[in-house]
């Protein structure tokens, strides 16, 4: 029980008035002569009692009338919901609208978001003037209280689907924090959501419950705008195992289909964009769902020419949730990476050359195209002014002290984007390598050769140079390939980074950026045969039994040096796409073609080595083109929504109520329910009509009794 205007309860003190009147100013009876008084006296006693009773009854009725009037005017409310608040205080309301892509689900000719927007708008417009209203969504844009309710309503009306939604609990907690900043207000939070397990999982509920616990004044109303029996067919995932293909290598695409509330076989189609820019259908499969409602379909497309290729996998039929009926992908068909292997003799390059482009395979078809040269040859070429930039990467295998011109050529090429790998071996000389030019490439002055027998033991393989090994990190038997001798540095340069270490903690692979290029130094060579003449081999990495780790590591490192596999071609909405510009390009502008709009011309700052695209909220294929007809740059990337946005399983009502503090949370199914809870929660169930009826009845009784009592009075 509460009161909207409790101060009026003080009016009950006026009860004193009738009591006073009763006691002090008692109404005088009419005085009449009556000789037959004796007959009156005979019945006096019983009548006297009755009269007194009536007096007191009248007094009681009058007191009740005043008390009842005070009670009614104080506007009593019944707190049926148990929600308690600061009655009469101004309102601070945060409206959280779940605007994730999942809310695109159509039901009743309306998407969930449209329904939520409408309900939220209606609700906001019914708030009393002067209420503080904040509209919070899942876009992550910082929000505060709107200037007025009209602004808040317009903000709610203009909410759009968010392809990269932040977690719902984050939005709710932000709203709770916002409300908590208004301690003088009644703090009410309205969440309009479809209540799926994906958005309100156990962790999210726990986080919300904790936040509610720490802000005791905030009350949460959840308006359910979801659909109980949703129907949806979704392509939850499109997997392109190889995003960079060699020429002639077929494109393989795997699509996962998930059916909710459907059992029909779905037709899945593959489209690839042609050179003319049209989406050409390149395959069709039937997806028959297994018992768990999922199906996997595979496509294969051959004969893709060099360049960037984009396409999408789509369901041929439509369903209530449209966004996940289509997923896009981008692949690139690239020429092999050109690698220059430099050794004292071409023998030194054998192991690495075989690892990158095995001679038993057609060299043209491999990912790497290796060219082996000696240092002497390169020095001559450098003298003749032949640029190194025709290569993507250069590997120096066990280099001896080199001429400054060669070092200079390497430094210049690295500045332009050439990847340089230095495999230090027995020919290295600390004094010669301590010169300034070699030190521009090396991570530090060489200290000594360590003859401590050890082996490679990378702690983790998260570095891009080694991340390709991560999936089978546990299976690599590094100790089978001992490293008997390796170089140690006096001190690493400030910008050097240790990618991997030996078991004895000495740095094994050290990276150092130089200009636009990458530079990796390995402190042990990969050119030592099993039994070199006149000395012990420095390691058995390439010569141990079945040296597949060496092959894998080499390909990773050289690929990294050549800056391949760097760019993410398939992104989530909101992620920043990076497109590296080819070395030596002088682009000043490019054309950006988003999936949902007209091409935009953008300028590039001078000297930029990559294009960053941050506005990736729209789903689909993006294209970045520059250089006009020469086609200097024609790249692209795809943006797909997270697969959990297709999950429509609803959270159990009991789970929801059990996870949140029961006395401060209400769940409503219909807008009217929200309204009812709000009214009851805000003001309680008003008892005024009942109270005033009671007062009226008491009044009537009092009037009747007193009229009868004092009839014909003076």
């Amino acid at each position, binding site marked *: 029980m509460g009161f909207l205007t409790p101060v009026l309860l003080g009016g009950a003190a006026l009860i004193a008035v009738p009591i006073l009147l009763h006691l002090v100013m008692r109404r005088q009876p009419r005085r009449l002569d009556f000789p*037959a008084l004796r007959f009156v006296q005979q019945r006096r006693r019983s009548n006297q009692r009755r009269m007194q009773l009536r007096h007191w009854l009248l007094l009681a009725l009058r007191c009740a009338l005043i008390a009842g009037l005070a009670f009614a005017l104080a506007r009593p409310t019944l707190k049926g919901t148990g929600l308690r608040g600061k009655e009469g205080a101004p309102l601070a309301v945060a409206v959280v609208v779940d605007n994730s892509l999942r809310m695109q689900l159509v039901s009743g000719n309306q998407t969930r978001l449209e329904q939520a927007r409408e309900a939220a708008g209606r609700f906001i417009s019914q708030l009393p003037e002067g209420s503080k209203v904040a509209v919070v969504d899942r876009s992550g844009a910082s929000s505060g209280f709107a200037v007025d309710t009209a602004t808040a309503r317009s903000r709610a009306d203009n909410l759009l689907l968010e392809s990269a939604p932040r977690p719902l609990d984050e939005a709710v907690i932000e709203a709770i924090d916002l409300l908590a900043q208004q301690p003088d207000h009644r703090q009410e939070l309205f969440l309009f959501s479809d209540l799926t397990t994906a958005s309100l999982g156990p962790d999210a509920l726990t986080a919300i419950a904790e936040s509610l616990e720490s802000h005791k004044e905030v009350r949460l109303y959840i308006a359910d705008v979801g659909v109980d029996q949703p129907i949806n067919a979704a392509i939850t995932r499109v997997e392109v195992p190889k995003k960079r293909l060699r020429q002639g290598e077929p494109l393989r695409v795997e699509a996962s289909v998930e059916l909710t509330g459907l059992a029909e076989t779905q037709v899945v189609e593959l489209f690839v964009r042609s050179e003319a820019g049209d989406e050409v259908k390149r395959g069709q499969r039937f997806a028959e769902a297994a018992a768990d409602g999922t199906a996997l379909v595979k496509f294969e497309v051959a004969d893709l020419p060099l360049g960037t290729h984009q396409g999408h996998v789509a369901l041929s039929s439509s369903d209530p949730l449209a966004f996940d009926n289509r997923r896009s992908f981008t692949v690139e068909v690239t020429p092999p990476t050109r690698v220059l292997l430099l050794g004292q003799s071409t023998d030194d390059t054998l192991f690495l050359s075989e690892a990158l482009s095995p001679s038993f395979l057609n060299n043209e078809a491999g990912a790497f195209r290796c060219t082996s040269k000696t240092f002497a040859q390169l020095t001559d070429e450098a003298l003749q002014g032949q640029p190194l930039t025709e290569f993507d990467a250069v590997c120096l295998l066990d280099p001896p002290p080199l001429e400054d011109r060669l070092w200079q050529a390497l430094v210049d090429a690295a500045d332009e984007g050439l990847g340089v790998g230095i495999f230090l071996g027995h020919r290295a000389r600390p004094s010669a390598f301590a010169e300034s030019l070699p030190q521009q490439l090396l991570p530090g002055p060489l200290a000594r050769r360590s003859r401590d027998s050890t082996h490679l033991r990378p702690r983790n393989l998260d570095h891009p140079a080694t991340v390709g090994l991560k999936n089978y990190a546990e299976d690599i038997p590094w100790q089978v390939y001992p490293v008997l001798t390796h170089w140690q540095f006096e001190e690493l340069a400030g910008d050097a980074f240790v990618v991997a270490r030996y078991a004895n903690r000495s740095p094994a692979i050290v990276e150092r950026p130089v200009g636009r290029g990458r530079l990796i130094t390995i402190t042990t060579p990969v050119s030592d045969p099993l039994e070199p003449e006149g000395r012990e081999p420095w390691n058995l990495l390439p010569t141990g039994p079945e040296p597949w780790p060496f092959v894998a590591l080499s390909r990773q490192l050289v690929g990294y040096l050549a800056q391949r596999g760097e760019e993410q071609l398939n992104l989530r909405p909101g992620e920043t796409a990076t497109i590296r510009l080819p070395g030596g390009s002088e682009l000043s502008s490019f054309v950006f073609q988003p999936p949902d709009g007209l091409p935009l011309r953008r300028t590039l700052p001078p000297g930029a080595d990559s294009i960053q695209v941050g506005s990736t909220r729209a789903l689909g294929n993006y294209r970045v083109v520059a250089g006009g007809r020469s086609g200097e740059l024609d790249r692209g990337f795809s943006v797909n929504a997270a697969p959990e946005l297709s999950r429509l399983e609803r959270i159990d009502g009991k789970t929801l109520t059990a996870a949140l503090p029961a006395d401060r949370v209400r769940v409503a199914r219909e807008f009217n329910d929200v309204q009812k809870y709000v009214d009851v929660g805000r003001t309680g169930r008003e008892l005024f009509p009942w109270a005033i009826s009671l007062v009226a009845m008491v009044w009537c009784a009092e009037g009747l009794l007193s009229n009868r009592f004092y009839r014909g009075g003076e």
Partner: protein
Amino acid sequence: MATVEKYLKPEVIRQISRLDLRAQFIVKGFLQGLHASPFHGFSVEFSEHRKYSTGDDPKDIDWLVYAKTDKYYVKKFEAETNITGYLVMDLSGSMGYSHEQELTKFEYSICLAAALCYLMIHQNDPVGLVTFGEKILDVLPPKSKRQQIGNILSILANLRPNKQTDIAHSLDQLAAMLRHSSLVMVFSDLLAEPDEVIAALRRLRHGGHDVILFHVLDHAEVEFPFDGLVELRDPESDQSLEVDADGYRTDYLEAIADFRRTYEKECRQSRIDYVPLDTSMQFDRALTEYLANRHNWG
């Protein structure tokens, strides 16, 4: 006479002369209503026979004697009545009470008494007047002269009913005072202890007197027309009582009915004529009803 006029005016009964007429009118109205003689019950008694002479009323011829003797004899009636009437007036303060009626109980009683007085004088019956409060106050000896009416009325007109009353004692006094059988007509509201009054009435009756008890109550005393909260005061005892009239009415009416019933029952047992009256009743109607009933009894 002036004082009599004062309280017996206007129209019908409010002037003494008119009262006379009024009484006459009441009786005549009564006679007109009854074509047989109404006076059998009073002082008409056989005295002796005498020879018929011309001019005698033929209806007085005694036909039994004629049958035996073949001569006309008429029945001779006693010229002097042996019934003496006494109008006994209660002068208690309560008799002066009237609530919204034109006449007080006392005035009403005077009117009644005047009518009866006229009636008896008309029959040559002597009528006397006795008034009492706590004891007998005034006594006017009975006479059958016409001016007796004027005497009685002038005395009554000058009396004020403002005394304390002891009806039983007064009646006892009266019983002791009367030597011959008389017709005692008591006018009182009987607001005293009924047992004592009844006992006194019985004694009076046992003294050989014919008693007519006119129980005169004000209309308000019979109907209790009050409502709301009232403070009632007894003018005689000066006691007062605050009551809720509405709540009391039923009880009161029951009590007054009991009271009247008691008198009626006791009077019937003692062969006393009990005439319950209230001041809202018409005189002629009241008297006619009574006399008709008495005739029927006779």
